[in-house]
């Protein structure tokens, strides 16, 4: 059964004339890792927010075969978790304070997190390797630590489907790799993961399915190996893109496919930047 289905989802931001999403239909099978690729302004963030019901009121979205609007607030949050791109707290919350927010849908209406809930939150931080920073202020943490804390919150939320908005944005190589490993790890536990990224390599490295989004339309979707290729990426980003296979058994790494945009070397010089 599909964990997450969007059928003909359209969305126009208030005050805009042109719709941001135009009839999007996608599906993510249970246990799949679905990667959303697309240039700036293609509607990735809006689509992800629609998938979790933060925008559009859940119209056209189904979770585990049930329409999203039919879920209560807590019920929905126990099925699907959302990791925003930018977490920023005004007040000096610690990483543990942020992680324990994930327990909210499991609490009664008028109760606060129990010692068990705090333990689950601290465990989530531990599993992402930032347990030692539990009492560190979120605002003073690095971008990578904040991203990990927000993912820990989603893990503490214990939802079968996790939606992440550009989880690798503005992170260094080590942290990007760490996040991709975590995404793959979540999938091996049977969770369904949907994430967006600007780096097609991340789709090739961590995803099983890909959706290519441009101007609010789905350009292509399907298995990553099938959909992510020279032609589709070139059309998606309007620059020539090449995929190559690198690595082999002799250097200890399996062969992997990476992609890069083709630059005509003389062009930049002629533009005289």
């Amino acid at each position: 059964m599909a964990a997450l289905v969007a059928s003909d989802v359209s969305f126009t931001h208030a005050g805009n004339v042109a719709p941001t999403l135009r009839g999007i239909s996608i599906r993510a099978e249970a246990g799949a890792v679905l990667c959303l690729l697309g240039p700036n302004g293609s509607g990735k963030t809006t689509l992800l927010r629609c998938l979790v019901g933060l925008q559009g009121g859940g119209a056209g979205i189904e979770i585990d075969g049930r329409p999203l609007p039919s879920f209560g607030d807590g019920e929905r949050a126990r099925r699907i978790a959302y990791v925003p791109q930018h977490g920023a707290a005004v007040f000096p919350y610690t990483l543990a304070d942020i992680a324990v927010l994930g327990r909210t849908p499991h609490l009664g209406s008028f109760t606060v997190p129990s010692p068990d809930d705090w333990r689950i939150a601290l465990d989530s931080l531990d599993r992402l390797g930032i347990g030692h920073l539990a009492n560190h202020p979120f605002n003073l943490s690095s971008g990578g630590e904040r991203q990990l804390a927000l993912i820990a919150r989603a893990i503490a939320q214990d939802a079968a489907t996790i939606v992440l908005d550009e989880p690798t944005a503005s992170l260094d190589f080590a942290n990007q790799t760490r996040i991709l490993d975590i995404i793959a790890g979540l999938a091996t536990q049977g969770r369904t993961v949907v994430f967006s990224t600007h780096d097609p390599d991340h789709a090739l490295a961590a995803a099983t399915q890909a959706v290519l989004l441009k101007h609010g339309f789905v350009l292509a979707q399907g298995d990553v190996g099938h959909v992510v290729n020279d032609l589709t990426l070139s059309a998606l980003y309007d620059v020539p893109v090449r995929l190559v296979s690198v690595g082999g058994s002799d250097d200890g790494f399996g062969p992997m496919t990476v992609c890069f945009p083709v630059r005509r070397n003389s062009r930049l010089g002629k533009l005289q930047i």
Partner: protein
Amino acid sequence: MLLLSAVVLAFATGRYPVPPLMALRILLHPIIGGEADWTATVETVVWEIRLPRIAGALLVGASLAAAGATYQCIFRNPLVSPAILGASQGAALGASLALLLRLSWSGIMGMAVASGILATSATALIGRHLGSGSMITLVLAGLVVAAVFNALVAVVQYIADPLDVLPSITFWLMGSLNRIGNDDLGIIGVPVALMLAQLYAIRWHINVLGADNDAARALGVNAPLVSGVAIAGATVLTALAVSVSGIVGWVGLVVPHIARFLVGPNFDRLLPVSALTGGLFLLAMDTLARSVATQELPLGVVTSLVGAPFFAIVLGRARRHWF
């Protein structure tokens, strides 16, 4: 402990000094009995004058501080308070209109609540219209609303009877606790307790909004409902406080910062600690107002003199987190 000693000290201080131990024995006399070695005058001072005033200070201080903590958390803005959002000035208009019409206590409180909610809604609407990009927009919206309601209060004062109603409005507006009597304590105490209980019931959902407003819905929190209930609760608390004591500024702005410094930003602990600290703070300020000069100073003047410099220190300490 601190609160208890402050209360005893407050009983002892004033134009008619009473030794702290004697004040304590007078208060406990109905319970523990014993020999009454004090005059009837002292007993009247303690029971009829000091008790309602001290209870009033605790109630007003707790209300304003709890309201301030709630506003700051819901709006995710450390710069807002009942006075800065215009809620206090809104309540003041309702209450002074009620004084003009010579309404009863419940009339004053009802008018203050209605007018306070009107003012707060106006601030929230203008703030949303200006855009939520910066913390300053909401402060500016509050400035606009407060100015309008201040002007309307001035109109009420202008048309009020200069011999009778005007002095009572004017002195009350400056902030004072000497209008409250023992009979009024229940009228104000019960709704204050109800509103504090309402905020305490939804303390965790308020905390979620304070930590992450954007994703609160994805965490299973009905953000519009929780904000609405919380803002309404805070505004009613503000209006109740204003109808008792006039505009006592800075308590609702400064005390939540002190409480956050003491127990951290999580609202489940911030709310009770703010309320306790607010009560203690206002009691200390009122005791100061009664004792520092031969003539009693208006309470609002004292809280401004102490609160404003304190807020400057808080701003300096926490600036790097906010801007």
